[in-house]
């Protein structure tokens, strides 16, 4: 069974059609890239999947259940997590405090007024595991707001991962990064995909990252789907070259 089925979703803002009748199916363990020129509706498409706002038309099925009308936190509970184009973290808290919140939410503790020592120790163990996995060792007690852009992005990805998602939505994870940081994040994403068989949808501008990581690519242009296929198919597609790759190159 497919993990995610997006069926003909559209989003209108007044007279502007940001996303127009787009469909997509993602299989378990797949890494799908979504590309397109600026203003193509990629982030709006993400916002529809993650429940930031409801679609004007169409439906979204996750793991066999229609989630079109569910609130964002209910989608998180069903196994969907996301990051944002502009990093969304808790800048005045430490890395470990940032990670502790989703770890405790994922353990079903969000309303708990207290915890036993043993449970607390288990939560902190998981937090430290995530700190290491994100390449943030030694920075766990630093305020996130004081870290480099790359480390902040890594923290945000690990916060999403702390929720134990089955589908991870990453909105331009390498935006604004230098080569070394881009390499580190790319390696992290590939490890999550290869080793943990995590399904990932990725919006990205960096073609090296996309062709290195993606199983399949979907191309959006002016709110509509222009093409879909393997990286080789997309690379050879004339329409895509004309509308997107041609301009970017």
């Amino acid at each position: 069974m497919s993990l995610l089925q997006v069926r003909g979703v559209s989003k209108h803002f007044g007279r502007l059609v940001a996303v127009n009748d787009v469909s997509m199916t993602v299989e378990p363990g797949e890494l799908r890239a979504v590309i397109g020129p600026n203003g193509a509706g990629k982030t709006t498409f993400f916002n529809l999947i993650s429940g930031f706002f409801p679609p004007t038309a169409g439906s979204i099925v996750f793991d066999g259940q229609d989630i079109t009308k569910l609130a964002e936190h209910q989608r998180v509970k069903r196994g969907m997590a996301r990051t944002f184009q502009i990093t969304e973290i808790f800048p005045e808290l430490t890395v470990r405090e940032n990670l502790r919140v989703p770890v405790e939410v994922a353990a079903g503790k969000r309303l708990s007024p207290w915890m036993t020592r043993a449970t607390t120790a288990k939560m902190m163990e998981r937090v430290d595991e995530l700190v290491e996995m994100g390449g943030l060792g030694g920075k766990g007690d630093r305020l996130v707001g004081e870290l480099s852009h790359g480390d902040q992005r890594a923290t945000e990805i690990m916060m999403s991962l702390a929720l134990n998602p089955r589908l991870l939505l990453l909105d331009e994870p390498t935006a604004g990064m230098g080569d070394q940081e881009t390499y580190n994040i790319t390696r992290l994403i590939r490890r999550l995909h290869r080793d943990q068989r995590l399904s990932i949808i990725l919006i990205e501008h960096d073609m090296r990252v996309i062709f290195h990581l993606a199983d399949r690519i979907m191309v959006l242009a002016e709110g509509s789907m222009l093409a879909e296929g393997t990286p080789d198919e997309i690379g050879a597609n004339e329409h895509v070259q004309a509308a997107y790759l041609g301009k970017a190159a």
Partner: protein
Amino acid sequence: MSGLANHKFSIVVWIALLTMPFWMGALGGYTELAIRVVVLGLAAMALNFLLGFTGVLSFGHAAYFGLGAYGVGMTIKYLHPSTPLGMLIGVVTGTIAAAVIGALIAKRRGVYFAMVTIAFGQVFYFIAFRWNNVTGGDDGLTGWRRQAIDLGLGKLDISRDVTYYYFVLAVFAVSVVAMALLIRSPFGRTLVAIRENERRARFLGIPVEQHIWLSFVISCFFASLAGTLYALLSNFTDPRALRWDQSGNFVIMAVLGGMRSFWGPLIGAAIFVVLQDYVSSQTENWMSFIGVFFMLVVLFFPRGILGMIKRRASA
């Protein structure tokens, strides 16, 4: 500031509170003033549970404070002369009102939330003001006294101010410890997460409206408890206890002392109460002095008095 320094500061606060009736006189104060500090400190700390640790500004907390005050007064006057029963009814009334109103406003944010809390607060003020034959109207609710508390083994006579001070301090201690434990719990961390970044909190699976509602109800629970203690102090309450300027005073206390620190609002309440007592004996326009003092603190120490001291200590 390190955890150890925090711990030391807490010990200093508790020692000061436990000994306050003995040195208050030497400084020109009196026991009733000490009680006002503790009671209004509790109200300001209750407000700060919502303001400082959830990031939501309420300008209507006097409504719940006042419901507690009228609840205890009317119970003792009309229903049954029992202090604990009166306090229970006062707190339950305030908390139920908060649960209902909170559910209506939990989706509002920022200045809209603050405005709606004022509006609901004024509803209770006008009820207390107009319903003369029950609430005493503008003259206030008189003709009742705090009653000795039956502990089973014997009666605790709280009619003397010093005994009442320690009774109030005991209630304060239990409330403050409960709030501290809540702030350090997983639930408390979700509230801080909402304060820091609501969008991130939402997409970490936290139903933000539900958590803000709970924080509001908990905050109002302790505010109405403070209200019962306040009415019992003077065996009297009047509509000003629920008016919007009283709500504003709680906000001033929290901001003055430092709303990002746990003890800040208590320090703010102490400064406010003492300043009010001293200045109002010199001039009727005491509020303008408080106003100037408040502006100076906000301009030069935006994190409040305690925030400034903490920064000095860690520098």
